[in-house]
C-alpha cells in the first residue's frame, strides 16, 4: 500500500506487543452482526500511473475556462492569479498543517491569518474581520444570524431580488427552521429603490442584506440604503466584490454594519465552485457575535509578540449549543491565498485590475449593444458585470453559437428570474482582451443580425 509504512514483520511485532492474535481481534468491539462480510463494492485500486491516466481522461472531457473565452460571472470569476499565490499555498508547512490550536507549532498560520484579517479590514474599512468562512453565501447567512442576535429582532429580515439568488437560497435554508421571515424587495429596474426598501423595513426588521455591485452588476445606492435601514434600527449587511474595492468606496465608508463577500476573486482558482473563501468583517461592537476563528496578537512568557486563536468563548468547542455558530474550521488555505494575492497586487495592482475590469466591461457592453441587436437590460451604472437582453427566444441560439466558437458567453437568467427569460448575465475581467470582446461582437452580429 502506497501510504502505509508498516511491513508484515512490523505488524506481527506490534500485535505481539499488544497481546493480540490478529488484527481482526482488534475489531472485537464491533459486533459481528455489523461487520461487513464482503468487500465494499468499489472500483479496484489504481496505481499512480493508472490514476494519472484516468483523471487526465476525465479532465480532458471538460473544457477549462482558459481553453475558451470566459465571460461567465455570477460570483465566480476568471481573474488573474500571480504565480506566487500557488507557490506559497503549495508549501507543505501550510497545507498539511491543521487549525492552529498549538500556537507554538503554528505561528506561521496564525501570523498569516492575522495579516489576512488586517488586509480585509483595510480593504473594507470595517473594524474587524474573522479568519474566513466557507463561501460568500454562507458568510451572508452567518451575517444575518449575527444581526438577529445583535438587534434581538428575530421576526424579519429584508433582502433584495438583486442579491445573488444562491445567497438568498442559502439564507432561506438557514432561516427555514427559525422563526424568521425573509422579505425580498423586488428590483425590476436592476437595483434597489431606496424608497421601496424604506417601505419594507420596519421596527421589527433585524437587518437588510444587499449586494453592491449587485448580482446584475449594477451599483446600488448604498448610502441611501444604509440610511433606510438605520432609520428603523436595522443593520445593513453588504455583500461586496473584493476586486471592486480597487475603485469603489469601502463598505465601512458608506455605513455597512457587516460586510461579507465571496473571496474567490482574491487568488482562488475557479475549481468548479470551490473551495472558495467567505469573507466576513464587521464593526467593533459586534465582534463577540462573530462566527468562526479569530487570530489575535499577544505576547509569550518572554514578552515576544506572537499570535493565538482568540475569543474562543464564542465558539462551539467551548460554548456548544450556545455558540455563535457551529463553524469549526475556516478556509485557512484560501485565506492564505487571499493574503498572498493582496500582498502581491498591492494598492496599485488591485486598483489597476479593478480599472481594467470596469473599462473592458464598459467597452464590451457598448460594443455588443451598438448595433441594437442586444440591449442593456438595466440603466444603472455597472462595474464588471452587466445584463444583456436579447430578442425574444434567441438567448439559447446566441449562447449555443458562442459555445461553438469556444466562447462561454454568459449565464442565462431564466432559472432564477423567469421575468428575465431573454436576459444573459455577462462578466468581463481584466483577463479579457479587446480581440476577444470584438470577436464576440462579430458573433452577435452574425447570429442575430
Amino acid at each position: 500500500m502506497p501510504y502505509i509504512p508498516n511491513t508484515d514483520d512490523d505488524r506481527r511485532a506490534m500485535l505481539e506487543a499488544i497481546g493480540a492474535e490478529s488484527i481482526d481481534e482488534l475489531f472485537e468491539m464491533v459486533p459481528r452482526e455489523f461487520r461487513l462480510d464482503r468487500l465494499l463494492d468499489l472500483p479496484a485500486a489504481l496505481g499512480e500511473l493508472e490514476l494519472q491516466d484516468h483523471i487526465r481522461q476525465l479532465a480532458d472531457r471538460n473544457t477549462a475556462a482558459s481553453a475558451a473565452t470566459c465571460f461567465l460571472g455570477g460570483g465566480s470569476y476568471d481573474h488573474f492569479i500571480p504565480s506566487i499565490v500557488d507557490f506559497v499555498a503549495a508549501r507543505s508547512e501550510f497545507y498539511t498543517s491543521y487549525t492552529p490550536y498549538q500556537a507554538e507549532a503554528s505561528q506561521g498560520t496564525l501570523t498569516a491569518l492575522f495579516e489576512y484579517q488586517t488586509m480585509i479590514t483595510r480593504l473594507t474599512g470595517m473594524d474587524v474581520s474573522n479568519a474566513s468562512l466557507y463561501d460568500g453565501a454562507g458568510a451572508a447567512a452567518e451575517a444575518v444570524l449575527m444581526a438577529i442576535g445583535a438587534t434581538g429582532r428575530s421576526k424579519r429580515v429584508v433582502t433584495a431580488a438583486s442579491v445573488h439568488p444562491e445567497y438568498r437560497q442559502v439564507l432561506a435554508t438557514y432561516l427555514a427552521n427559525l422563526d424568521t421571515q425573509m422579505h425580498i424587495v423586488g428590483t425590476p429596474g436592476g437595483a434597489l429603490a431606496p424608497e421601496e426598501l424604506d417601505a419594507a423595513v420596519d421596527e421589527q426588521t433585524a437587518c437588510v442584506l444587499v449586494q453592491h455591485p449587485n448580482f446584475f452588476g449594477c451599483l446600488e445606492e448604498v448610502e441611501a440604503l444604509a440610511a433606510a435601514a438605520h432609520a428603523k434600527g436595522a443593520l445593513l449587511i453588504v455583500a461586496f466584490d473584493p476586486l471592486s474595492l480597487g475603485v469603489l468606496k469601502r463598505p465601512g465608508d458608506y455605513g455597512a454594519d457587516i460586510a461579507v463577500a465571496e473571496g474567490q476573486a482574491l487568488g482562488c482558482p475557479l475549481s468548479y465552485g470551490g473551495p472558495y473563501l467567505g469573507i466576513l468583517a464587521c464593526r467593533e461592537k459586534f465582534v463577540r457575535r462573530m462566527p468562526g476563528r479569530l487570530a489575535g496578537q499577544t505576547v509569550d512568557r518572554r514578552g515576544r509578540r506572537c499570535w493565538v486563536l482568540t475569543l474562543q468563548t464564542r465558539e462551539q468547542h467551548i460554548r456548544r449549543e450556545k455558540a455563535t455558530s457551529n463553524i469549526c474550521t475556516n478556509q485557512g488555505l484560501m485565506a492564505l491565498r487571499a493574503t498572498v494575492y493582496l500582498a502581491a497586487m498591492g494598492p496599485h495592482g488591485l486598483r489597476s485590475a479593478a480599472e481594467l475590469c470596469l473599462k473592458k466591461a464598459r467597452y464590451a457592453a457598448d460594443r455588443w449593444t451598438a448595433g441594437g441587436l442586444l440591449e442593456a437590460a438595466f440603466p444603472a451604472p455597472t462595474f464588471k458585470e452587466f445584463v444583456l437582453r436579447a430578442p425574444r427566444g434567441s438567448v439559447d441560439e446566441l449562447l449555443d453559437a458562442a459555445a461553438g466558437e469556444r466562447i462561454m458567453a454568459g449565464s442565462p437568467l431564466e432559472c432564477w428570474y423567469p421575468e428575465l427569460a431573454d436576459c444573459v448575465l455577462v462578466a468581463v475581467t481584466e483577463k479579457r482582451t479587446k480581440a476577444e470582446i470584438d470577436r464576440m461582437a462579430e458573433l452577435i452580429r452574425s447570429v442575430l443580425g
Partner: protein
Amino acid sequence: MRNEQAADLLFAQSRPGCRAVRMPECDVPAEAVESLLPRSALADRPPDLPELTEPDVVRHFVNLSTQNMSVDGNFYPLGSCTMKYNPKRNEALASLEGLAGLHPYQRSETIQGMLALLHSLQEMLGEIAGLDAVSLQPAAGAHGEMTALFVAAAFLRDTGQNRDVVLIPDGAHGTNPASAAMAGFRTLEVKSTAAGLVDLGDLAAKLDERTAVFMITNPNTLGLFDRQIGEIAEMVHASGGLVYLDGANMNAILGIARPGDFGADMMHFNPHKTFSGPHGGGGPGAGPIAVAGKLAPYLPAPLVAKRGDHYTLDFDRPKSIGRVRSFFGNTGVLVRTYCYLRTHGPEGLRRVAENAVLNANYLLSRVKDCLPVPHGDRCMHEFVASAQKLKAERGVTAMDVAKRLLDYGFHAPTVYFPLIVREALMIEPTETEGKATLDSFAEALQRIVAEDAGLLHDAPHTTAVCRPDEVRAARQSILKWTAPSM
C-alpha cells in the same frame, strides 16, 4: 534557527513605490474611471494595502511557513483530526486545468468529465456509508451535520411530526449541539457510562415523542466503538427518532462496518480527515452527507444525475431543503477524495482502517504505562490518555506534556477533549505512520513524564515562542495590525 527577516509583518515592510505585479495597459478605448461611475460611489484613494516586491512577499511567507509543524514534516497525532499523509498525486491531479479551471456556471456538456467524477463519488460514498443517497454540497464536517439536521427537520415537518429535541452524548464534538441549535432544535445531553459508552438508562429516560434525532459519534471520541449501537438504534427508532452518525471517526471502520448497516439514518464524512485531506491549516474541508432513502428527497439541490450516458445537475427536487452553499460545493476537495478512493479500492480502504486501528492499539500499549488510559487496553483508531495522576502527584498537566512534545519534534495530541476525561490527551496516530515513529513518540512520552516539573511547565523550549498569553489576547483583543504611533 530564528530568521529575524521574517519577524516583521507585511505592513511594516511596506515601502512606497514597491511593486510585485504590473498589470497590462488597457487595450480598449475607455474614458477615465470618474466619468464611468458616479463620483459618490468611488473611493478617493487606492486600497490601503502594503507596497511590496515579489521577493519580499515570497521570503515573508516562506519564513512564516517554517514556523509551522505539518504532517509532511512531523508526526501529528492530533486526536479526532486524523492527520494522515496527504498524497502528492492528489494535489497534482486536482490542479489539472481541466478540473481546477472550470467555472461553476459552465454548460453541462463542457463538464462531463467533472460530473462523471462527482457522480461516481456520490455512489462510492453511499456504498461506504451503507446508505442510499449522497449530497456533496456541504463545505465542512460541521456544515454537513447542520445540513443533515436541516434534512431531518424538513422530513419531520413534511411527515407532520412535531419533534424538536436532539439528544447528544456528553462526549460529543461541540459542533453537534451547535449544529442542532442552528437547525432550530433543543438539545439534551445523554450521559456516558464509566466505560465510556452511551448510558442506555439515561438514553431511555430522555427518549420520547419529542425526540427528533440522536447524534452519535461511533467510534466515539474515546476511540471506542459502542457495541450497544444495535440496541441504541432500535431504541431511537422505536421512539420515532432518527439516528445521526458523526462520521469524524470513519477512518477506524472503512470497509469493516457501515453506518447504514448498524442503524444510522444519516451521516457526514470528513474527507479532509478520512480521505486524506489535506487540512490546509484549518480548511478547506468538505462535509458530504449520506442518508437513507426516506430522507433523500430532502437533500440539498443539486445532485449529480446520470441520464443515459449524459451527466446533469438535478435541480428538480421539490422537497429539497434548498441550498446550504453557493455553486456545487468544495469541489477541489472532492476531487482529491475521488483520487484517494480510486487509489485504495475496496481492499485498500479496509487496510487503511486495519492499520489505523493497529497503530492506535500499539501506541496505546506503549503509552499506558507512563500515562494511564482510563477507558481500557483496546481502542479503535485513537485513544485518550489522562495526565490526571501526573498532575496530582507532580503538578504536571496535560498541557505541559503537550507543549514538551513539541520540543521532541512531535505535534501535540488534542488536549482537554473529550470533556469527560480529566487532563485528556487524545492521541490518533493514523495508518500512515510506521512502527519506528510510534516507538520514538512513546519513548519521548516516557522521558517527558520523568522530566523535571519546572522544565515541563516552561516548555516548549525550542520553538520561536513559548506559551502565548491567551488571557491577554482575549482581553486586549488586538485583531489587526496598526502602525506604531510616532
